[in-house]
């Protein structure tokens, strides 16, 4: 079977470019668009089916939103309660203000354990703080064990989706990546999903058996018990969480839940919203360390990294309710066409568009505009984050471009005075008369060219509604 050279998608899409520019590059990649449309379309349909099965789906969403709002209202006290209970159960708890602190703490623990490499459970928090890159820089090696994360890591690419980081690759491309980059891929590897999974399984098994240290995130952190929860599909997480002697879990402080019973709500919402399954195959819950049962050194790094800043914004803070299911990505018409790399942030899609500019104030100001405000994201969000509301809220922060600001100000000035508005309508009617014969405007100068690049524009009518109304009143 012939193989093609692997070109990491992220290397083609400029990560620091403004969204419209990066998106344009992504739109010009037909294979990427095909892969995305197929994958998001499939998950979208699965989600809709299993969410539709539950009579109390809306009540579950309300409950989840209420629990998360409660957590946000008393985050400090819950974080301390979690710490107390986790320590009592034998865990060590560390606090990290930012990515740098979290990475340094994690690297120190790895060294103290006498290790130079770690196996990893799929974790967005560690992607966010670029743990792998930091480890690489200080001479440690982090091996991803989630199948899709493994694909991305082997391809030297970046994740393009929260749940399915390799969503931009099809199985033939994945075969090529394994063949060229895995080192121990079986000869004659086909692109059958079962064959690809088996190749990854054999490759990873060796790592699981030799790893001394594992790094994970957590889907939930239960304050009442000091427990952490990881929800996964492949069982690689279970291997990482039970086999090595040392376990480091890096957990965003917004992952806290008050009580164990709260999991009832989220365990119904998360699998259905993310993979479109009624239940996920593996759910691991662990509380501290226990002699003879799993890792003996259990560390939890509680990560802020901008979260308390988000918490301070009354409208924006609902972004902290996110449980990283990625349902919003899968229904987003923008994400479906551009993929994740164009967003230039580890959290892409609608949730990324409200999270990235809040976690890193002053950056990603273009992302709140990467939405038509169609509202499909809000409709599927299992924790009812009103993403369109937050998008509009963030747009108010600006900065607004000077020309646009002037145009908006002028439009408002005209619209706020009925006489001026009527005069403007009349002027537009007379001004467009030379083109009336064609019926449509087909080419406008910038910035109108942004419209006429793909659409004709109708002209004002000869007689407007006001003329008609006046005539009728007579």
């Amino acid at each position, binding site marked *: 079977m012939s193989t093609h050279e692997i070109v990491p998608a992220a290397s083609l899409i400029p990560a620091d470019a403004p969204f419209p520019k990066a998106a344009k590059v992504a739109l010009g990649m037909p294979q990427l668009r095909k892969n995305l449309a197929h994958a998001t379309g499939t998950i979208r349909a699965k989600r809709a089916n299993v969410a539709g099965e539950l009579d109390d789906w809306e009540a579950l969403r309300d409950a989840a939103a209420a629990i998360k709002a409660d957590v946000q209202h008393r985050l400090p006290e819950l974080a301390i309660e979690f710490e107390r209970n986790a320590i009592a159960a034998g865990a060590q708890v560390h606090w990290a203000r930012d990515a740098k602190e979290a990475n340094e703490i994690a690297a120190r623990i790895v060294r103290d354990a006498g290790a130079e490499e770690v196996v990893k459970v799929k974790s967005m928090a560690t992607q966010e703080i670029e743990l792998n890159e930091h480890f690489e820089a200080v001479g440690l090696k982090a091996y991803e064990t989630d199948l899709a994360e493994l694909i991305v890591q082997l391809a030297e690419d970046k994740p393009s989706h929260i749940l399915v980081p390799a969503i931009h690759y099809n199985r033939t491309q994945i075969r090529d990546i394994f063949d060229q980059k895995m080192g121990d891929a079986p000869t004659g590897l086909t692109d059958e999903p079962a064959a690809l999974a088996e190749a990854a399984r054999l490759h990873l098994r060796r790592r699981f058996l030799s790893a001394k240290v594992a790094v994970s995130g957590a889907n939930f952190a239960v304050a009442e018990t000091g427990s952490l929860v990881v929800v996964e599909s492949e069982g690689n997480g279970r291997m990482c969480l039970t086999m090595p002697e040392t376990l480091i879990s890096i957990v965003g402080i917004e992952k806290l839940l008050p009580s164990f019973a709260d999991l009832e709500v989220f365990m119904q919402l998360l699998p259905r919203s993310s993979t479109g399954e009624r239940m996920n195959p593996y759910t691991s819950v662990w509380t501290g360390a226990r002699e003879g049962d799993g890792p003996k050194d259990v560390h939890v790094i509680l990560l802020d990294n901008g979260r308390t800043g988000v918490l301070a914004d009354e409208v924006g803070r609902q972004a902290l309710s996110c449980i990283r299911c990625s349902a919003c990505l899968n229904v987003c018409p923008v994400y479906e066409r551009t993929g994740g790399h164009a967003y230039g942030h580890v959290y892409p899609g609608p949730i990324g568009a409200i999270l990235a500019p809040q976690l890193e104030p002053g950056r990603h100001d273009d992302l709140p505009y*990467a939405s038509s405000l169609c509202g499909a994201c809000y409709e599927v969000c299992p924790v009812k984050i009103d993403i369109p509301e937050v998008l509009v809220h*963030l747009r108010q922060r600006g900065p607004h471009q000077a020309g646009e600001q002037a145009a*908006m100000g002028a439009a*408002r000035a005209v619209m706020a005075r009925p006489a001026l508005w009527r005069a403007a309508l009349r002027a537009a009617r007379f001004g467009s008369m030379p083109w009336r014969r064609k019926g449509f405007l*087909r080419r406008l100068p910038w910035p109108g060219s942004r419209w006429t*690049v793909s*659409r004709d524009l*109708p002209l004002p009518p000869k007689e407007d509604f006001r003329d008609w109304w006046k005539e009728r009143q007579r």
Partner: protein
Amino acid sequence: MPRVALFITCVNDALFPETPKAVVRILERLGYDVDFPAAQTCCGQMHANSGYKKDAETLASSFEAVFGDYDAIVTPSGSCAAMTRDQYPHLTGSDIGRRVHELSEFLIDVAGVEDVGARFPHTVTYHPTCHGTRALGLGDKPLRLLRAVQDIDLVDLPAADQCCGFGGTFALKNSEVSSAMLADKCRHASSTGAEYLAAADNSCLTHIGGGISRLERTAGSASVAGRRGPRPIHYAEILASAA
């Protein structure tokens, strides 16, 4: 006769007089006394959704001043109605949006009619616009009204719930992504073979219609499966057509 105010919206004021005329005809046919407050301009949605809160507040206050005295305000736009209902409370604290009804809401929920006595012997496909469907929760109200039209042939629009890519200033700021969304919407609309594409918002119809017109012009009819694409039409104009 019960009196209702008509909010025609700035887009119809500037470009599409036939739509508000249709609303007047439907309401009068049902026995309502329609008032058109001439001082009306724009609900402020463009400013609000683009992040110009102060400007939007000014326009929301103007809207309140013009329409404040009416018990019922009818508008042929799902997104403008949603603007007054969802955003005004945050902008000016005004709850006037509760008295603003998108046409199908008014006809079904207030007037209590589904058959408005129209006849339209054409094939029509319906695009549920995003703000009408999701922000306002119109559900199938416009479709119920269309189904009651005599001799109409309604055909399903594939992937109907997908946004057409308009999104106000989104169409300019993210022109390429918007155009990609539009291309899919035009393809789906043309695949129905319908003569008309109906919707509850002329802004979205300007976008889709502009796309279809451009496709026909640049690629000939070949790009749309050997036929003309559907003509954009506000569903009010179908309901106003006389039996």
